């Protein structure tokens, strides 16, 4: 039986600051890489343009949520007050726009919020219990003061040696291989600690 070989997720590099990471991202984007990402403790202004992102589609989900909310509110009030059990209260019409507005408004807001949060979770693929980048011990700094760039091995332009050199040229340090299954990595290259949530 052959020893199973570990699968490489990608190469990670650390950058000293937000501006260094931004410039590195511009270069990687210019080289045409597609499967890569930058990681930072806070959103970096201008990073979306540097990585060539389109506008986020979360707003589409919000709009769908809002439309659902408004039509639900209308259907609810109209059906219950004017169709299912019309009841005269103080001689007022069964259905009128004015008294319905507060509930139209509130349900629109409520379902817009639901739509937004569902959209966010779908687009960011959350919740997610594990990700290969967490196998890199140094990556713990990402939520503190670390700025990282990870090139994925799945990218067609990825070449283990050339990409390592590239990351060094654009200012990256601490360049390391990130494995999907670190327990299979032979000892010297093995990360200090296995997996984190």
């Amino acid at each position, binding site marked *: 039986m052959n020893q199973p070989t570990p699968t490489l997720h990608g190469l990670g590099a650390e950058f000293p*600051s*937000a501006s260094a990471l931004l410039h590195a991202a511009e270069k990687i984007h210019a080289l045409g890489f597609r499967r890569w990402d930058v990681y930072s403790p806070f959103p970096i202004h201008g990073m979306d343009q540097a990585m060539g992102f389109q506008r986020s589609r979360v707003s589409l989900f919000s709009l769908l949520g809002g439309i659902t909310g408004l039509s639900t509110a209308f259907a609810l009030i109209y059906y*219950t007050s004017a169709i299912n059990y019309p009841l005269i209260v103080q001689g007022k019409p069964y259905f009128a726009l004015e008294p319905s507005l507060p509930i139209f408004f509130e349900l629109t*807001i409520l379902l817009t919020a639901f739509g937004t949060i569902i959209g966010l979770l779908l687009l960011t693929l959350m919740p997610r219990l594990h990700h290969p980048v967490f196998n890199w011990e140094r*990556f713990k700094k990402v*939520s503190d003061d670390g700025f990282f760039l990870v090139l994925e091995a799945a990218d067609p332009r990825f070449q283990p040696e050339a990409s390592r050199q590239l990351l060094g040229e654009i200012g990256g340090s601490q360049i390391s291989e990130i494995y999907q299954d670190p327990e299979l990595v032979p000892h010297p290259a093995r990360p200090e600690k296995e997996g984190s949530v």
Partner: protein
Amino acid sequence: MRADNASAQAAFAKASDYLERQPLVANHRPLSWITDHVCRIVEQPAPIWWWVSTILFGAVATLVPAMLTYLVSTGVGVWGLNVPVCWAWDITNFVFWIGIGHAGTLISAILFLTRQKWRTSINRSAEAMTIFAVICAGIFPAFHVGRIWFAWFLFPIPNANAIWQNFRSPLLWDVFAVSTYFTVSLIFWYLGLIPDLASLRDRATTRFRQMAYGLLSLGWRGSNRQWTHYEKAYLILAGISTPLVLSVHSVVSFDFATSVVPGWHTTIFPPYFVAGAIFGGFAMVLTLLIPFRELYGLHDLVTDKHIDNMCKIVLLTGSLVGYAYSMEFFIAWYSGNPFEIYAFTNRALGPYWWAYWSMITCNVVAPQLFWFKYCRQNPWVVLAIVMFPNTGMWFERFVIIVTSIHRDFLPSSWGYFSPTWVDITLFIGTIGLFVFLFLLFVRFLPMITMFEVKNVTPQADPHHHDHPTGEKTSGHHSIPAKAHA
């Protein structure tokens, strides 16, 4: 000439000291310092004062279930309510607590949309305060319905009577407004917590913490593919929370304004209630933040400038409610309606005069002290002054509710309301519950939004080129040089 130059230079230097914008994080703290100082509140063993105060306020909070059990098992009569005053302390407390919540949403949403960067270090705790205040608020109308086990009739769920809710009633609008407000505030708060929960996960030293914060942070890894959607979602939630927060207190004010009771039936109510809510809410934010900033040494994050800004908002909104009070009187007189005129003279000079003048002193007079820089700059003076709005806003709701209905159209049905011990104890219980929940929050969750604070430091600006000291050349030095030329 030389002396002139020197004095001009000194004057410029002094002026530029004033003109220079104070940094939002004092003392050029590095990013890791921010993480460290916020996370260690959660990570280190709880200090003695935390245990003492949590046990104390937790004990006071038990008065809530105790009083509610007594109320439900005996009947709503144990509250001092009776015709003609059927809404009294319970609705006063409801409006008081829901109003306090408004400052949290104002800070997190409206100040976000208006790009007030100083909001970053206070928004988390203010939003937490919102949620806890709405929890306290919800207790009162829910139990005021009398037969609490039928409270689900408030929601459009098919029931055995086959009757639906009356969607023309402002009380039903209130159900929708408050429950939407609570849900959206909770979502917004949790969304803001995700990156900070990831910080706690990454710093966790025990397996339990790693699992708990790991699950709560939903697998957040700070990648830009996440940030881009995250920022959009945050912006949208801020955008919808802004009209929401304005609507909630407007809908609360409709409970009164759509009735025919003199003193309630006024068009000024929605803006007046919203201004009052923000006023009372900011006073409560200051009340909570000043002690915690001292106890946890967070002076570099919640700076004197933050407190100064909040005092100015208290001054502004306090003056707005003062204007509303006088405008109510003017309109009552101008309307020529004897019932209106009587309702307002009765407020100021009738049997509840003490409540009215407490309200004026606390809400209109006391905040005027914030015109003085000394009062805004000294945290303990601020803390003393904001106790007045905290009290005054309770009196405002009491004055509006009780003095309007205790004497309306028919003198034969006039009455006088006094609270019972159950009213008083339940209200004290909710104060205990509020502080208790807040103490739990500071212990288990990061009380300052670390990622947003980091984002407003100079290091976060991608066009900032790292100077070893983190200082940039500022106008400070160049102005005197120009004076020379």
